[in-house]
């Protein structure tokens, strides 16, 4: 099997991993080495699905011993199997990196023989890159569930980011769809890594070895199991708080396998995934809590409005907010105002009191914000319109939701049946022209 075929098979199996960020690590280049980390991360290309390609995302092998129902590489599926040698991956990474195709390597693997054996292979690959080729670029590696702690330590010293995918947001779902994986097998390594990162940060020696400088992440599959958005978001919140994860990725479930325990979906639930990402940002950067955004009476997100708008309409008593006096975290609660705008506002109002024109000039988008703020005590619309249902209607209208087209239409005298596609400008002819309006005013009509 040549390298083209292997790359095809193993990149194809790796594509369902959502994570592709290369941020968080500021590893410096060495004198004789190649590559460095860029703290904000760099995207190198974008695939046809619009997701960025920043790392060489690849599996070491897809010959898995596990039988997880949702996974394309489960051992009972008949797909082509391939395995790279550690050196092949290291060479490919270096050659791609030299040509600036990628920012680094994202290495994952199916479980070959046993978790520990797979981990050994991963470590071997990465130590060729780090020690032999003196590669200082970004490396993101998967921890295999159920591997031993010594191997995690070894891997952690070599890579920038570790991740282990939870995939299914509750232990019941895990039992149903991934019978060989255990909750403890996933959570124990995560807890161990997060504790080790904290210890490493506390150590004061300047010569301390790196340990996962870009932190650890995880991924949850959305839509394969019946959990509500609230439950998923609660899980993410506790992961951020307790295990100080950098990111939780959400991956809309794509039906790749047929199984009685799996739902059959025509399309992946992309909107739900999008809403969860929006809420995830609200948790991490905007000071929101999962309980605030959703509760038992609203366990799922609004389909048209984003989570912050939805929250603001349900908590209209906290608004309108005065732009010139509100503090940073209060500004962040306004729909349409994000971190960049809030910082700009705080900076600009040191010099001037802001009004709506000044806000527009600063580049603050007023599309949503205008309903929730006052500037120098003035509201953008007549104050009588400050009512939740007025605001909600307007916001929904602004989103320009395209409702499904119905198959029937109102017949017009002028439309011809032979050419149903052709649209006659019926509406335009019925609209009063400028001439009509003048005639109307002068009384000639």
């Amino acid at each position, binding site marked *: 099997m040549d*390298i*083209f075929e292997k*790359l*095809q098979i193993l*990149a*194809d199996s*790796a*594509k*369902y991993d959502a994570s592709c960020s290369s941020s968080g690590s500021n590893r410096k*280049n060495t*004198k*004789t*080495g*190649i*590559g*460095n980390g*860029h703290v*904000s991360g*760099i*995207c*190198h*290309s*974008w*695939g*046809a*699905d*619009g*997701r*960025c*390609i*920043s790392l*060489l*995302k690849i599996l070491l092998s897809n010959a898995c011993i596990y039988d997880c129902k949702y996974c394309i590489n489960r051992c009972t599926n008949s797909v082509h199997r391939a395995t790279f040698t550690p050196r092949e991956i290291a060479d*490919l990474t270096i*050659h*791609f990196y*030299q*040509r*600036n*195709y990628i*920012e680094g390597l994202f290495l994952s693997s199916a479980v070959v023989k046993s978790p520990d054996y797979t981990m050994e292979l991963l470590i071997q690959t990465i130590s060729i890159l780090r020690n032999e080729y003196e590669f200082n670029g970004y490396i993101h590696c998967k921890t295999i569930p159920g591997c031993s702690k010594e191997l995690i330590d070894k891997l952690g010293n070599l890579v920038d980011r570790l991740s282990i995918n939870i995939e299914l947001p509750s232990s019941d779902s895990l039992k149903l769809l991934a019978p060989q994986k255990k909750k403890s097998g996933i959570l124990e390594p995560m807890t161990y890594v997060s504790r080790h990162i904290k210890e490493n940060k506390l150590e004061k020696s300047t010569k301390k070895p790196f340990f996962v400088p870009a932190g650890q992440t995880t991924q949850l599959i959305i839509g394969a199991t019946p959990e509500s958005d609230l439950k998923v978001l609660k899980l993410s919140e506790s992961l951020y708080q307790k295990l100080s994860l950098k990111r939780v990725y959400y991956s*809309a479930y*794509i039906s790749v396998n047929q199984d009685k325990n799996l739902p059959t979906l025509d*399309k*992946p639930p*992309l909107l739900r995934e999008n809403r969860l990402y929006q809420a995830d940002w609200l948790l991490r950067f905007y000071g929101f809590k999962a309980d605030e955004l959703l509760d038992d009476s609203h366990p799922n997100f609004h389909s048209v409005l984003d989570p912050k708008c939805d929250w603001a309409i349900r908590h209209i008593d906290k608004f309108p907010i005065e732009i010139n006096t509100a503090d940073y975290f209060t500004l962040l609660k306004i729909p349409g105002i994000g971190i960049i705008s809030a910082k*700009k506002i705080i*900076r*600009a109002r*040191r*010099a*001037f009191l*802001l009004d709506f024109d*000044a806000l527009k*000039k*600063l*580049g603050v988008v007023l599309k949503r914000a205008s309903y929730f703020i006052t500037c120098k005590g003035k509201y953008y619309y007549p104050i009588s319109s400050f009512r939740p249902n007025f605001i909600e209607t307007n916001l929904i209208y602004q989103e320009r939701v395209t409702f499904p087209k119905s198959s029937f239409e109102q017949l017009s005298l002028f439309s011809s049946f032979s050419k149903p596609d052709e649209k006659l400008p019926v509406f335009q002819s019925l609209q009063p022209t400028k001439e009509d309006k003048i005639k109307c005013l002068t009384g000639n009509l």
Partner: protein
Amino acid sequence: MSNWKLINRTFLYDGSLDGFLTIVFNCYSSKMLPQKIYVEKDYISNFLDKIVVIKTDFEKSKRVFQGIEKIIGYDAFYYFYYAFLSNEKEKEMYLLKYLCDGFDSGPKINDRIAISYVFKVFSMQKRTLSECHRLKGLLRFQEVGDNLFYASVHPDNAILEPLGQHFMRRFSRQNFIIHDKIRDLCFLYSNQNYRIVDSTNMTVPTISAEEQKYQELWKLFFHTISIPERKNPRCQMQFMPRKYWKDLVEEP
């Protein structure tokens, strides 16, 4: 700066950073603002304009440079530098006003983003930086000789120098050429040193079979990694506008 005299002159300079800083020196010391400032070779003569050609004076530009760092702060030089690289028309007047006002009011100038020229400088800076960041990812090297790499770019703004410096840190062991095809300039790097040279008569080298193999592998990877069920060409186009496609290896 409000009581400065507006004189009916058009200043021409050579387009370099030092040339522009010389203008800043002349204006600030005489408390006078010109009508317009143009780069000498782009200027189309107009019989209404009264032209003054400003000669680059390195002594003056050095003093302005030190003054910016001392009085307005290092941040301001950073903003100014990236805004200066922008391809915005009449960027010079905005920058001149920004710096002159900055010398009067100090670091506080950076808070006054509601003033039109301060805002303009910031937005120019932001656009240049974001293009530079985008090209850090979208630039593609080809191996054209033993440890020699070549890349061509078509950037809107004159970002060759900061772009090259990024790759200097990253690929300190390999020699490379970055070719700005719009301005016909080349960034040459070898052994911790770089030069920017004119490249009007440069011929693009041919590539080897080995290089061809890695380009094919990359194309294969690029097409394999996207998920067909999630196809979203609009999103892709938003991040990777068509104007950058001609320098890419992959065909999106």
